[in-house]
């Protein structure tokens, strides 16, 4: 069973991403959107959460949310894929289920 984990809270404000990464099974996919995209920025103290999990999980961010927040895609942790809204839909269809970490 494949699982898409979606995180929309800032990892600097809540522990949603941290719990998601602790409980997501190997091979899963993680999409960061809304304030969740802040966790995907390199150089911050929370960047390590994703960097450490990249060998087990595939990471995506929603491009329009990155752009809205003034964060250039070049600031994303290397290896994170940028998707648009239709890419978000494709991920939800591709996986058997979606787990939302509010």
């Amino acid at each position, binding site marked *: 069973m494949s699982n898409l984990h979606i995180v*929309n*809270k*800032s990892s*600097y*404000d809540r522990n949603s991403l941290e719990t998601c990464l602790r409980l997501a099974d190997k091979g899963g996919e993680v999409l960061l959107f*809304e*304030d969740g995209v*802040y966790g995907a*920025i*390199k*150089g*911050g*103290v*929370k*960047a390590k959460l994703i960097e450490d999990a990249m060998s087990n999980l595939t990471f995506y961010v929603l*491009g*329009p*949310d990155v*752009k*809205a*927040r*003034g*964060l*250039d895609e070049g*600031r994303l942790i290397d290896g994170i894929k940028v998707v*648009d809204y239709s890419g978000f839909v494709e991920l939800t269809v591709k996986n058997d289920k979606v787990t939302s970490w509010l």
Partner: protein
Amino acid sequence: MSDVKKFCFLNRKAPYGTVYAWESLEVVLISAAFDQDVSLVFADDGVYQLVKGQDTTGLGIKNFSPTYSALGDYDIKKIYIEKESLDARGLTLDDLQHLTWEDENEDWAEKDSIMVVEKAELAKILESQDVLLSF
């Protein structure tokens, strides 16, 4: 004018995930009409509010970040950013909008509004306020 109070707006939320940032900015602009001593503080995820280059066209919602550049015209010239919050997020002053005000006592010289302060100094700034409003 002995009835002037020190009003401080404490902003701790990122700009678009919740409505706090926009609501704060609206109240700040309203407060400017009352000729009080207003200052703004950005800490925690609040520092993201001032990140430059915001573009919300993909979201279909209003980009209110250009409004911050109007604060100087409203005589709001004290904007404090907590250094520790910037550092933790991998941000520097260069990542933020350049906000200024014009000093009428110095031939309208343009001066920086943003001051990056460390936590101990920020604690004293907060302590010195008469009214503190949190967003």
